């Protein structure tokens, strides 16, 4: 498995290492500060547990609040001589040297969600943050016929927010009639978005549609619009693929579309990591989870009543 590792039995009394080769996946994720990440962590752990049961592959999981702590976590994983590492970098730039370090240690690396700036990753499983913005932008242009007043509810400042926002702005800028009249942060939180949307509704008597960067926030926005009894708003879109949003789409609510960015992408990453640990060559070096547009037409394909997210 870990063929490139030369430190086989370097005096350590680790019984697992001395006996038959125990395979281990190291997983380094950010901490659960919002719903999507909470769901992702949960998916990762479930998948890792499943692998442990079916294949006997062990796993170690770490969570970090900031890039430096994540670098520390990865150091710990390298020190434990895990066979493969799955990492969701908090910041691409900051974790790129860390990826290099993993590569230098001869450990295969599976990157989830956010790409590194170098080629340290063996496999990348990513969603398409920019795609979310671009696809949403296209949808807006189409639905509003190139003319309308739009409100944007962003995530807290971060590269994800940046990518989704700039994709959206680019796509919308193609039409001169489209105007983003307010752009405020809902912190990836339903309650905060509710509050922020209330205030935005107050400031803007005329709104045509609302773009939110996350389904959790979209739910707050829906509530605010409902409470204010506003009828000028034609639709709201989200991102991610949360159960509550799917249900609203199914029920012909104000929610008309969302763009897939499922936290379950980490399951693929963990599975791939398991395969790599067993010595298999990964089938492809890049797995892109399309930011598929989910609307009334195709929502039933994606709806899972058991989902936690």
């Amino acid at each position, binding site marked *: 498995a870990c063929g490139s590792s030369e430190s086989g039995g370097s005096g350590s009394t680790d019984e697992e290492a001395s006996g038959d080769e125990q395979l281990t996946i190291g997983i380094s994720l950010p901490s659960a*500060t919002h719903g999507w990440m*909470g769901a992702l962590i949960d998916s990762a752990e479930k998948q890792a547990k499943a692998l442990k049961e079916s294949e006997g592959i062990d796993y170690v999981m770490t969570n970090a609040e900031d890039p430096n702590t994540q670098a520390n976590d990865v150091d710990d994983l390298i020190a434990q001589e895990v066979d493969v590492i799955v990492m969701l970098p908090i910041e691409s730039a900051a974790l790129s040297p860390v990826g290099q370090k993993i590569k230098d240690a001869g450990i295969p690396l599976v990157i989830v969600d956010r790409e590194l700036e170098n080629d340290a990753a063996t496999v990348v499983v990513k969603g398409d943050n920019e795609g979310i913005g671009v696809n949403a932008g296209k949808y807006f242009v189409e639905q509003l016929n190139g003319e309308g007043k739009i409100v944007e509810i*962003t995530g807290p400042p971060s590269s994800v927010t940046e990518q989704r926002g700039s994709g959206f702005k680019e796509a919308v800028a193609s039409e001169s009639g489209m105007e983003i009249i307010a*752009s405020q942060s809902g*912190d990836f*939180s339903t*309650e905060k978005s509710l509050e922020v949307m209330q205030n935005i509704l*107050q*400031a803007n008597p005329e709104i045509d549609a609302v773009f939110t960067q996350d389904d959790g926030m979209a739910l*707050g926005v829906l509530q605010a619009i409902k409470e204010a009894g506003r009828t000028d708003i034609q639709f709201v879109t989200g991102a991610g693929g949360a159960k509550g949003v799917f249900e609203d789409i199914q029920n012909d609510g104000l929610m008309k579309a969302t763009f897939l960015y499922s936290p379950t992408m980490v399951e693929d990453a963990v599975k791939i990591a398991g395969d790599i640990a067993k010595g298999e060559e990964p089938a492809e070096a890049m797995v892109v989870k399309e930011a598929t547009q989910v609307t009334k037409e195709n929502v039933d394909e994606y709806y899972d009543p058991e989902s936690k997210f």
Partner: protein
Amino acid sequence: MKSRMSWLWSEYSVIIAFVIIYIGASAMNPRFLDMNNQLNILMQVSIIGIIALGMTVVMLSGGIDLSVGSVLALAGVVSVLALNASGSIWIGVLTALLVGSFAGFLNGLMVAKGRIASFIATLGMMAGARSIALYIAEGGSVSGEVSGFTAIANSDFWIFDFPVIIFFVMAVLIYVLMHKTRFGRYVYALGSNEKAAMLSAIRVDRIKIGVYTLIGTLVGIAAVIETSRLNSISSSSSGAQYELDAIAAVIIGGTRMTGGRGKIIGTIFGILILGILNNMMNLMNVSPHLQGFVKGLIIIIAVVFQKRE
């Protein structure tokens, strides 16, 4: 006359700061004065407001409670589970209150009997309660399945939303508790001079436990409102950083960090100032990147205006 003014200033400078900010906000944005907007602001501050009332009591006693946000999430998650399991709204509400007050009671025990600095005891509770909430909800959010539950936070009474009424009632109750009962008197005494309070035959430990249990109960109430408002609660993001807003409101309201001095009325105006600030930043569409700066600046200015010792 002059001494009257200076008395007013020294006792209620926060009210003057409030009036200035209020006038400023009216001048900057005509929509601010809109009746709906005013009611929105009241609604938006009610949850943190209820917590800030409890925080005032804790800080008057010379302590601090950093765990409010996490305990809110935990109480919310557990109460939704109880609600769904029992189908009874009363059981759901009661569970939230019980979880909140029990967490508070534990904080009180640690501070009073364990002699742990309140900062560290409640920091531990903050990590612990969040952790348990995440564990129970598997990192995701849980939604109520009992119809009628959402009515708690979404009903009106005359023009006021129900949460605003609850906030108001709680404010009156806590005011009476602090100024008309011996509990309140003892809290002030304890915060001012713990040893002298003890030598005055006050059971300091019980008062401390009472203080933390009280804020825990208030957090439980806040959890009910928050959960009922959106019929769901997120184990990861709900309540995040509530402690900072609550503490800021208390200090803006003129309560001394070290205890013994301060007023419930001050806290109410403190929380209103924060509410107006958030509202104005959304109304004015201030860049999310700069909102922290504006908010920090105005908080500091409001505090500078206050009487110094």
